[in-house]
């Protein structure tokens, strides 16, 4: 097994060394890295089996909301190893069971076979039902002892900033300058977001990203911004806003929040690329690859293929290459540049491997080649993380070049009063724009709370914002979003092939949803056989977007694919209604809300 830990640590401070017990074997890790990373660094890539087809599952993304694989930790079932951090002596059990009758079972759950006369027959169905009930690979609920009970904290603030990245920090700092009480919620161990992982200069900036964001973080602390780390905003309810932290382990802490304004700076989601066997452990998103490297000092692989010669893809390659990793970039367009090893004109990718990725087969126009890689990084496309703003009531629409975006104006206001967006969550490309948008959102919150001087400061900043947009060449796209905010009209343009699609036909082994094993083929059938062309109906006929990750990884890909197959605009396909919670919460934590103190 090659060692994936790089000798020099990246920009991060390492936590204490701990050893944890994984299926009986002792494994070394650090308290500063999620359990997923400890497992990955020690060569354990498959933690779980998928729900229907029992395929090996590792993590695709380290984001806590991407709950595609779970493990048993200290006897507690269904724990996402990406959201918890190791302690000495922690016991982790992975799931590798694969029943013998799986072949038969596979055919039973296949959505097309479910409706075949032989299966739906009144005499056969009860037997089939028993088999399905028994063989769906769901975690076993067990009663476990909780050392520390769940607790509830009531928080009041003027402004709640969701997300601790550069946009969120900028918003918090700016609002704090005008005297607002600011509460910042971040799901990481420490705020900083994506830019904290950047050793290079982000676009439009003249210093490494982590240096910039660290300074901003110090500023926020100095000004008295209150931060809740390892916490996720889970829902906007009619009567309250709720946040949740999975600590203490086994129960958790809930925060019942009320505030006058909210800034959603939840960043963006790297969309999974869709190709054959794209669910194999070892295939991950760009943000996880960078984060593992710079924060935890673990390289994603020794030979890495990167899908998409985007700004993001090149950035991943640059980072990995600094640590002597062989990288190759695969892109759909024909152009290739000399600086990086880019293979252009890629039509199809097929991943090869049994329990982990061992190689990929690449089909370009006219030729096909096999690359021995141990990791594939998906960097073809990103979409704003709209779960929180959409659920809060902001209108979400598709704009070419940005993805599904909460519709906003140049003051970062959304269609919901008191709700602002900034940074990746507003669809803006990574870099200096995130900082500017964050500041504008913070100022808009101050304006909404009638703070004197905020409005004129905002005018000045918006001018600067518009000129940066022009300089970066995305002025037209962003202006079309601002215009939609005013006019309520949406672009009805059709789309060509989705950028994440590396698959020439609707294959049965190209996965769209990793939680429920929903394939490209299932979506294709829903559109062509049943004639369903809105995502709400596709969702209900296939189950896409209804499982543990709440559609974080699958909804945008599904909407774009359905639009592509049906020849419609993504706005007429729509993105399904987002409902609370964004991250699932244990019953005992919910039951404890309001019992003590409140």
């Amino acid at each position, binding site marked *: 097994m090659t060692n994936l830990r790089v000798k020099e640590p990246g920009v991060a401070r390492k936590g204490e060394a701990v050893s944890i017990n994984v299926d009986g074997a002792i494994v070394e890790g650090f308290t500063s890295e999620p359990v997923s990373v400890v497992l990955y660094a020690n060569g354990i890539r498959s933690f779980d089996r998928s729900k229907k087809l029992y395929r090996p599952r590792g993590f695709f993304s380290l984001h806590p909301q991407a709950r595609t694989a779970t493990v048993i930790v200290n006897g507690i079932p269904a724990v996402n190893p990406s959201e918890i951090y190791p302690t000495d002596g922690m016991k982790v059990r992975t799931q590798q069971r694969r029943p013998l009758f799986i072949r038969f079972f596979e055919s039973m759950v296949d959505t097309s076979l479910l409706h075949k006369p032989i299966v*739906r*027959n009144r005499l056969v*169905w009860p037997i089939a039902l028993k088999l399905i009930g028994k063989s769906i690979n769901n975690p076993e*609920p067990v009663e476990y002892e909780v050392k520390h009970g769940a607790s509830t904290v009531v928080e009041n603030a003027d402004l709640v900033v969701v997300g601790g990245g550069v946009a969120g920090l900028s918003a918090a700092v700016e609002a704090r300058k005008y005297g607002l009480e600011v509460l910042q919620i971040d799901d990481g161990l420490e705020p900083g977001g994506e830019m904290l992982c950047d050793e290079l200069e982000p676009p439009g900036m003249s210093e490494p990203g982590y240096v910039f964001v660290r300074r901003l973080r110090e500023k926020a602390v100095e000004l008295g911004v209150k931060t809740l780390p390892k916490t996720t905003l889970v829902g906007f309810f009619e009567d309250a806003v709720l946040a949740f932290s999975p600590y203490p382990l086994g129960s958790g802490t809930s925060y019942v929040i009320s505030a006058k304004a909210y800034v959603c700076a939840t960043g963006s989601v790297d969309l999974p690329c869709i190709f054959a066997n794209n669910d194999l452990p070892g295939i991950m998103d760009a943000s996880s690859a960078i984060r593992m490297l710079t924060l935890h000092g673990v390289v994603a692989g020794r030979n890495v293929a990167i899908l998409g010669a985007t700004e993001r893809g090149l950035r991943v390659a640059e980072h990995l290459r600094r640590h002597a990793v062989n990288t190759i970039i695969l892109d759909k367009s024909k152009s290739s540049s000399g600086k990086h090893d880019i293979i252009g004109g890629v039509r199809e990718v097929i991943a090869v491997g049994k329990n982990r990725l061992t190689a990929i087969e690449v089909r370009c126009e006219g030729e096909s080649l096999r690359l021995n890689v141990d990791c594939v990084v998906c960097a073809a496309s990103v979409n704003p993380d709209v779960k929180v703003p959409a659920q809060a009531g902001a209108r979400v629409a598709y704009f070419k070049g940005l993805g599904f975006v909460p519709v906003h104006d140049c003051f970062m206001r959304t269609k919901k009063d008191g709700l602002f967006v900034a940074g990746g969550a507003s669809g803006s490309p990574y870099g200096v724009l995130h900082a500017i948008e964050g500041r504008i959102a913070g100022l808009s919150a101050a304006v909404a709370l009638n703070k004197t001087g905020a409005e004129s400061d905002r005018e000045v900043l918006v001018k600067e914002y518009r000129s940066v947009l022009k300089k970066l060449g995305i002025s037209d796209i962003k202006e079309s979003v601002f215009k939609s905010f005013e006019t309520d009209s949406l672009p009805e343009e059709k789309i060509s092939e989705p950028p994440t699609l590396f698959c020439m036909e609707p294959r049965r082994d190209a996965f769209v949803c990793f939680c429920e094993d929903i394939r490209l083929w299932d979506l294709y059938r829903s559109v062509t056989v049943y004639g369903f062309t809105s995502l709400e109906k596709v969702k*209900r006929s296939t189950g896409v977007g209804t499982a*543990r990750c709440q559609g974080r990884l699958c909804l945008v890909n599904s909407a774009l694919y359905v639009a592509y197959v049906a020849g419609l605009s993504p706005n007429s396909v729509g993105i399904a209604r987002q409902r609370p919670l964004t991250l*699932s919460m244990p019953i*005992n934590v*919910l039951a404890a809300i309001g019992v003590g103190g409140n």
Partner: protein
Amino acid sequence: MRVVVVGSGVIGLSSAYNLARMGAKDVVILEKEYLSYGSTVRSASRFRVHFWAEENSKFALESKKIMVRLPSITGWNILVTTGGYLWLLFNEDEVKVFRKKNKMWDRLGIAGKFLSPSEIKERYPYVYVDDVLEGFFGPQNGSCFHNYVAFGYYKAAAKLGARLFEKSPVEKVLVEDNRVVGVELPGGKVEADVVLLAAGAWTDGLLRNLGINLPTEPERKEVALTEAYRYFIEPLIIDFGTSAYIGQALKGEILGSLEVPVKSGLLPLENTLDFLVKWARAVYKRFPLLRGARVMRCWSGYYSMSADSSHIMGRDPDWPRGLYVAYGDSGHGFMMAPLIGKLLAKNILYDEVDELMRPFLPTRFKEGRLIPEKLVIG
């Protein structure tokens, strides 16, 4: 003859299918959002035959017979399970009521079984029964997958020539010379000889526009769902006192709800933390095994509540000719839909009022022949 069905919920679709099957040539379904938007997609998808009122029990019994045959009728496997319903009863009065009702159910051939707390524990070891006096188990009840029921009906109706128009909100029913002539949409009108209002909670508004006032009101209900766990809760388990219920879907998600006081009316389809916390507490107490289970999602939908909590179908002879309704289901429309559609189609095409349907006519309110239904769950 053109029939316009307003609403593409399971009742509208089942009516459209039956109309088309019985020979209606021109059936048009108008839906304000998308296929089966409204109450059907938000349903907890259960069916039962045990109702307070004998009329409802009889109706549900016949409806269930059609429901379980649906896979062969529509070609969609609706994933029927028959795990039963388990009512947990907490005091003598509740037990007495169920004993009395069971005599009626016995007469209909659907007698249930009374279980002592220890018997419940034996069968369903995961239920906390220390505060339970007795349980009533109705093995005839079960669940099926609501989306496949609706999609199946839609596909079958479309095959027979019924046409669905989505994003077509009906604003008004048009009446001339005391007969229905069509409906008005934002972009124009659709002519019709018969208009069937099956728009669930939105039916009240359309009727009120015509000066018809039936004692119905939408009531928002919330539902919560956990992540998927291994399938182990077979029946739907109901706390009779608080109306809290919990059941497990085939995919493994554990789903349930309970009653929280809300204002009636078309409240926004949002959720409240109040509901979620109360439901979590009910689960925490009743199912110790699920204390660490993770709640994944909640949503809300409307029950179209009628004054006596029984559904309303058919027409009042005083109404404009050609106007029919099917709504006011008070939370059990999904399970009644197969029979409602069938009987209503007969009623519309042949002017026939089936004996099973007669008690549910809208005239019952002014004639004072109510069908009080007290077994409303959730």
